[in-house]
Protein backbone atom coordinates (compact mmCIF):
# COMPACT_ATOMS: atom_id res chain seq x y z
CA UNK A 1 0.00 0.00 0.00
CA UNK A 2 2.21 2.78 -1.20
CA UNK A 3 -0.60 5.27 -1.57
CA UNK A 4 -2.45 6.64 1.40
CA UNK A 5 -6.00 5.57 2.23
CA UNK A 6 -8.79 5.86 -0.33
CA UNK A 7 -10.07 9.30 -1.10
CA UNK A 8 -13.68 9.39 0.05
CA UNK A 9 -15.81 11.40 -2.37
CA UNK A 10 -18.77 13.06 -0.67
CA UNK A 11 -22.40 12.32 -1.62
CA UNK A 12 -22.75 16.03 -2.33
CA UNK A 13 -19.99 15.96 -4.97
CA UNK A 14 -21.62 12.98 -6.70
CA UNK A 15 -25.00 14.72 -6.57
CA UNK A 16 -23.63 17.91 -8.11
CA UNK A 17 -21.84 15.92 -10.82
CA UNK A 18 -25.07 14.13 -11.70
CA UNK A 19 -26.82 17.49 -11.95
CA UNK A 20 -24.11 18.76 -14.27
CA UNK A 21 -24.38 15.62 -16.45
CA UNK A 22 -28.17 16.00 -16.66
CA UNK A 23 -27.83 19.65 -17.69
CA UNK A 24 -25.34 18.67 -20.43
CA UNK A 25 -27.75 15.95 -21.61
CA UNK A 26 -30.60 18.47 -21.75
CA UNK A 27 -28.42 20.87 -23.75
CA UNK A 28 -27.44 18.17 -26.27
CA UNK A 29 -31.10 17.16 -26.77
CA UNK A 30 -32.15 20.82 -27.13
CA UNK A 31 -29.34 21.65 -29.57
CA UNK A 32 -30.27 18.80 -31.90
CA UNK A 33 -34.00 19.55 -31.77
CA UNK A 34 -33.42 23.13 -32.89
CA UNK A 35 -32.13 22.98 -36.43
CA UNK A 36 -28.49 23.89 -36.20
CA UNK A 37 -28.00 21.54 -39.14
CA UNK A 38 -24.31 20.94 -39.71
CA UNK A 39 -23.08 21.99 -36.27
CA UNK A 40 -25.55 19.88 -34.29
CA UNK A 41 -23.56 16.64 -34.56
CA UNK A 42 -20.30 18.34 -33.66
CA UNK A 43 -21.88 20.05 -30.65
CA UNK A 44 -23.52 16.77 -29.55
CA UNK A 45 -20.16 14.97 -29.81
CA UNK A 46 -18.33 17.70 -27.91
CA UNK A 47 -20.96 17.52 -25.17
CA UNK A 48 -20.67 13.71 -25.09
CA UNK A 49 -16.88 14.01 -24.75
CA UNK A 50 -17.28 16.50 -21.92
CA UNK A 51 -19.72 14.18 -20.18
CA UNK A 52 -17.33 11.22 -20.55
CA UNK A 53 -14.45 13.26 -19.15
CA UNK A 54 -16.59 14.10 -16.12
CA UNK A 55 -17.65 10.46 -15.64
CA UNK A 56 -14.04 9.26 -15.97
CA UNK A 57 -12.70 11.97 -13.68
CA UNK A 58 -15.17 11.87 -10.81
CA UNK A 59 -17.36 8.74 -10.95
CA UNK A 60 -14.40 6.60 -12.02
CA UNK A 61 -12.04 8.43 -9.63
CA UNK A 62 -9.32 9.20 -12.19
CA UNK A 63 -9.03 12.62 -10.58
CA UNK A 64 -8.24 11.10 -7.18
CA UNK A 65 -6.43 7.87 -8.10
CA UNK A 66 -2.77 7.30 -8.85
CA UNK A 67 -1.62 9.04 -11.98
CA UNK A 68 -0.91 5.79 -13.88
CA UNK A 69 -4.64 5.23 -14.56
CA UNK A 70 -5.06 8.72 -15.97
CA UNK A 71 -1.99 8.32 -18.20
CA UNK A 72 -3.32 5.01 -19.55
CA UNK A 73 -6.78 6.48 -20.16
CA UNK A 74 -5.29 9.41 -22.08
CA UNK A 75 -3.22 6.95 -24.12
CA UNK A 76 -6.35 4.98 -25.08
CA UNK A 77 -8.14 8.20 -26.09
CA UNK A 78 -5.14 9.16 -28.24
CA UNK A 79 -5.09 5.74 -29.91
CA UNK A 80 -8.81 6.07 -30.71
CA UNK A 81 -8.30 9.58 -32.06
CA UNK A 82 -5.44 8.40 -34.26
CA UNK A 83 -7.56 5.54 -35.66
CA UNK A 84 -10.47 7.89 -36.42
CA UNK A 85 -8.23 10.52 -38.04
CA UNK A 86 -6.40 7.92 -40.16
CA UNK A 87 -9.67 6.30 -41.24
CA UNK A 88 -11.07 9.63 -42.40
CA UNK A 89 -7.87 10.64 -44.14
CA UNK A 90 -8.19 7.34 -45.99
CA UNK A 91 -11.88 7.83 -46.93
CA UNK A 92 -11.52 11.55 -47.58
CA UNK A 93 -8.87 11.10 -50.26
CA UNK A 94 -10.26 8.13 -52.18
Amino acid at each position, binding site marked *: *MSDTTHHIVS*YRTYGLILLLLLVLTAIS*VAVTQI*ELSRWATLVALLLAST*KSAIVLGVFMHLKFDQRVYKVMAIFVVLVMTAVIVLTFIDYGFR
Partner: protein
Amino acid sequence: MTESVAHHDAHRDDEGSKLGIWLFIFTELLFFGGLFVTYAVYRYENRQAFHLAAEQLDVTIGTINTVILLISSMTIAMSTTAIQKKDKRTTLILIGITLLLALVFLVNKYFEWSAKFDHGIWPGSPLMEELGRGDTLFFGLYFFMTGLHALHIIIGMILIAVILVRVRKDKITFDNFQLLENGGLYWHLVDLIWIFLFPLFYLIN
Protein backbone atom coordinates in the same frame (compact mmCIF):
# COMPACT_ATOMS: atom_id res chain seq x y z
CA MET B 1 6.52 -19.21 9.49
CA THR B 2 3.39 -21.24 10.21
CA GLU B 3 1.63 -17.96 10.90
CA SER B 4 2.36 -16.58 7.46
CA VAL B 5 1.11 -19.80 5.91
CA ALA B 6 -2.08 -19.55 7.93
CA HIS B 7 -2.69 -16.05 6.63
CA HIS B 8 -1.86 -16.92 3.07
CA ASP B 9 -5.50 -16.78 1.99
CA ALA B 10 -5.86 -13.29 3.40
CA HIS B 11 -3.42 -11.86 0.88
CA ARG B 12 -4.96 -9.46 -1.54
CA ASP B 13 -3.73 -6.84 -3.96
CA ASP B 14 -6.35 -4.15 -4.35
CA GLU B 15 -4.22 -2.00 -6.60
CA GLY B 16 -3.49 -4.95 -8.90
CA SER B 17 -7.17 -5.82 -8.96
CA LYS B 18 -8.05 -2.27 -9.95
CA LEU B 19 -5.37 -2.21 -12.63
CA GLY B 20 -6.90 -5.40 -14.01
CA ILE B 21 -10.40 -3.97 -14.34
CA TRP B 22 -8.99 -0.80 -15.93
CA LEU B 23 -7.12 -2.84 -18.55
CA PHE B 24 -10.35 -4.69 -19.26
CA ILE B 25 -12.20 -1.37 -19.56
CA PHE B 26 -9.60 -0.15 -22.08
CA THR B 27 -10.09 -3.23 -24.25
CA GLU B 28 -13.85 -2.65 -24.10
CA LEU B 29 -13.42 0.99 -25.10
CA LEU B 30 -11.30 0.03 -28.10
CA PHE B 31 -13.81 -2.69 -29.00
CA PHE B 32 -16.71 -0.25 -29.05
CA GLY B 33 -14.37 2.34 -30.56
CA GLY B 34 -13.98 0.12 -33.62
CA LEU B 35 -17.75 -0.05 -33.96
CA PHE B 36 -18.00 3.73 -33.67
CA VAL B 37 -15.45 4.10 -36.48
CA THR B 38 -17.55 1.70 -38.59
CA TYR B 39 -20.60 3.81 -37.83
CA ALA B 40 -18.77 7.04 -38.69
CA VAL B 41 -17.58 5.77 -42.08
CA TYR B 42 -21.00 4.40 -43.12
CA ARG B 43 -22.71 7.56 -41.97
CA TYR B 44 -20.22 9.63 -43.97
CA GLU B 45 -21.05 7.56 -47.04
CA ASN B 46 -24.83 7.47 -46.49
CA ARG B 47 -25.51 10.84 -44.91
CA GLN B 48 -29.08 11.32 -46.13
CA ALA B 49 -30.25 7.79 -45.34
CA PHE B 50 -28.76 7.89 -41.83
CA HIS B 51 -30.52 11.15 -41.04
CA LEU B 52 -33.87 9.89 -42.28
CA ALA B 53 -33.49 6.52 -40.58
CA ALA B 54 -32.53 8.14 -37.27
CA GLU B 55 -35.84 10.00 -37.25
CA GLN B 56 -37.50 6.61 -36.73
CA LEU B 57 -35.86 6.36 -33.30
CA ASP B 58 -37.70 7.59 -30.22
CA VAL B 59 -35.76 10.52 -28.75
CA THR B 60 -37.94 10.48 -25.62
CA ILE B 61 -37.12 6.86 -24.71
CA GLY B 62 -33.46 7.51 -25.56
CA THR B 63 -33.36 10.54 -23.28
CA ILE B 64 -35.13 8.72 -20.45
CA ASN B 65 -32.64 5.86 -20.70
CA THR B 66 -29.75 8.33 -20.68
CA VAL B 67 -31.07 9.90 -17.48
CA ILE B 68 -31.62 6.44 -15.93
CA LEU B 69 -28.03 5.37 -16.65
CA LEU B 70 -26.57 8.63 -15.36
CA ILE B 71 -28.52 8.31 -12.09
CA SER B 72 -27.49 4.65 -11.73
CA SER B 73 -23.86 5.66 -12.25
CA MET B 74 -24.22 8.12 -9.40
CA THR B 75 -25.86 5.60 -7.05
CA ILE B 76 -23.16 2.95 -7.61
CA ALA B 77 -20.46 5.61 -7.13
CA MET B 78 -22.17 6.74 -3.92
CA SER B 79 -22.20 3.14 -2.66
CA THR B 80 -18.38 3.18 -2.45
CA THR B 81 -18.66 6.32 -0.33
CA ALA B 82 -21.26 4.62 1.88
CA ILE B 83 -19.17 1.47 2.41
CA GLN B 84 -16.13 3.56 3.34
CA LYS B 85 -18.29 5.34 5.91
CA LYS B 86 -19.15 1.86 7.29
CA ASP B 87 -22.79 2.47 6.42
CA LYS B 88 -23.86 -0.98 5.26
CA ARG B 89 -27.57 -0.15 5.07
CA THR B 90 -27.06 2.82 2.73
CA THR B 91 -24.58 0.79 0.66
CA LEU B 92 -27.19 -1.94 0.14
CA ILE B 93 -29.92 0.57 -0.68
CA LEU B 94 -27.72 2.37 -3.24
CA ILE B 95 -26.67 -0.90 -4.91
CA GLY B 96 -30.32 -1.97 -4.93
CA ILE B 97 -31.38 1.28 -6.63
CA THR B 98 -28.65 0.77 -9.24
CA LEU B 99 -29.98 -2.71 -10.01
CA LEU B 100 -33.53 -1.44 -10.23
CA LEU B 101 -32.55 1.37 -12.62
CA ALA B 102 -30.67 -1.14 -14.80
CA LEU B 103 -33.82 -3.23 -14.99
CA VAL B 104 -35.93 -0.19 -15.94
CA PHE B 105 -33.39 0.58 -18.69
CA LEU B 106 -33.82 -2.93 -20.12
CA VAL B 107 -37.63 -2.74 -19.91
CA ASN B 108 -37.52 0.53 -21.90
CA LYS B 109 -35.20 -1.14 -24.39
CA TYR B 110 -37.67 -4.02 -24.72
CA PHE B 111 -40.52 -1.64 -25.57
CA GLU B 112 -38.32 0.33 -27.93
CA TRP B 113 -37.21 -2.75 -29.87
CA SER B 114 -40.77 -4.16 -29.88
CA ALA B 115 -42.02 -0.95 -31.50
CA LYS B 116 -39.32 -1.32 -34.17
CA PHE B 117 -40.29 -4.95 -34.82
CA ASP B 118 -43.95 -3.90 -35.10
CA HIS B 119 -42.97 -1.47 -37.82
CA GLY B 120 -41.20 -4.28 -39.66
CA ILE B 121 -37.76 -3.06 -38.76
CA TRP B 122 -35.27 -5.75 -37.76
CA PRO B 123 -32.06 -6.95 -39.40
CA GLY B 124 -32.95 -8.87 -42.57
CA SER B 125 -36.69 -8.06 -42.43
CA PRO B 126 -38.62 -7.83 -45.74
CA LEU B 127 -39.01 -4.08 -45.21
CA MET B 128 -35.26 -3.70 -44.69
CA GLU B 129 -34.63 -5.34 -48.03
CA GLU B 130 -36.92 -2.82 -49.76
CA LEU B 131 -35.21 0.11 -48.07
CA GLY B 132 -31.83 1.13 -49.34
CA ARG B 133 -28.33 0.28 -48.27
CA GLY B 134 -28.10 3.28 -45.91
CA ASP B 135 -31.15 2.25 -43.88
CA THR B 136 -29.93 -1.34 -43.68
CA LEU B 137 -26.56 -0.14 -42.38
CA PHE B 138 -28.10 2.29 -39.90
CA PHE B 139 -30.50 -0.21 -38.39
CA GLY B 140 -27.93 -3.00 -38.53
CA LEU B 141 -25.53 -0.89 -36.50
CA TYR B 142 -28.35 0.31 -34.25
CA PHE B 143 -29.45 -3.21 -33.34
CA PHE B 144 -25.91 -4.53 -33.02
CA MET B 145 -24.50 -1.69 -30.94
CA THR B 146 -27.48 -1.11 -28.64
CA GLY B 147 -27.89 -4.90 -28.37
CA LEU B 148 -24.25 -5.34 -27.41
CA HIS B 149 -24.64 -2.49 -24.95
CA ALA B 150 -27.76 -4.16 -23.48
CA LEU B 151 -25.73 -7.37 -23.10
CA HIS B 152 -23.21 -5.35 -21.08
CA ILE B 153 -26.09 -4.07 -18.93
CA ILE B 154 -27.18 -7.66 -18.25
CA ILE B 155 -23.62 -8.72 -17.34
CA GLY B 156 -23.33 -5.62 -15.15
CA MET B 157 -26.56 -6.53 -13.36
CA ILE B 158 -25.26 -10.04 -12.61
CA LEU B 159 -21.98 -8.57 -11.30
CA ILE B 160 -23.79 -5.98 -9.17
CA ALA B 161 -26.18 -8.64 -7.83
CA VAL B 162 -23.17 -10.73 -6.72
CA ILE B 163 -21.72 -7.63 -5.06
CA LEU B 164 -25.04 -6.95 -3.31
CA VAL B 165 -25.02 -10.44 -1.80
CA ARG B 166 -21.38 -10.12 -0.75
CA VAL B 167 -22.01 -6.79 0.97
CA ARG B 168 -24.96 -8.31 2.78
CA LYS B 169 -22.83 -11.27 3.93
CA ASP B 170 -20.07 -8.87 5.06
CA LYS B 171 -17.63 -10.30 2.51
CA ILE B 172 -17.30 -6.72 1.22
CA THR B 173 -16.59 -4.30 4.06
CA PHE B 174 -15.22 -0.80 4.68
CA ASP B 175 -11.63 -2.13 4.54
CA ASN B 176 -12.18 -4.63 1.74
CA PHE B 177 -14.40 -3.15 -0.96
CA GLN B 178 -12.29 -3.46 -4.12
CA LEU B 179 -14.89 -5.71 -5.76
CA LEU B 180 -17.54 -3.05 -5.19
CA GLU B 181 -15.28 -0.39 -6.66
CA ASN B 182 -14.45 -2.60 -9.67
CA GLY B 183 -18.13 -3.36 -10.22
CA GLY B 184 -18.75 0.37 -10.14
CA LEU B 185 -15.99 1.00 -12.68
CA TYR B 186 -17.54 -1.58 -15.03
CA TRP B 187 -20.94 0.04 -14.57
CA HIS B 188 -19.52 3.48 -15.43
CA LEU B 189 -18.04 1.97 -18.60
CA VAL B 190 -21.57 0.89 -19.61
CA ASP B 191 -22.66 4.49 -18.96
CA LEU B 192 -19.72 5.90 -20.95
CA ILE B 193 -20.62 3.83 -24.03
CA TRP B 194 -24.24 4.94 -23.82
CA ILE B 195 -23.13 8.60 -23.59
CA PHE B 196 -21.85 8.21 -27.18
CA LEU B 197 -24.54 5.84 -28.48
CA PHE B 198 -27.30 8.25 -27.50
CA PRO B 199 -26.34 11.33 -29.58
CA LEU B 200 -25.04 9.25 -32.49
CA PHE B 201 -28.21 7.20 -32.98
CA TYR B 202 -31.02 9.26 -31.47
CA LEU B 203 -29.94 12.84 -31.94
CA ILE B 204 -29.29 13.22 -35.66
CA ASN B 205 -31.86 15.28 -37.47
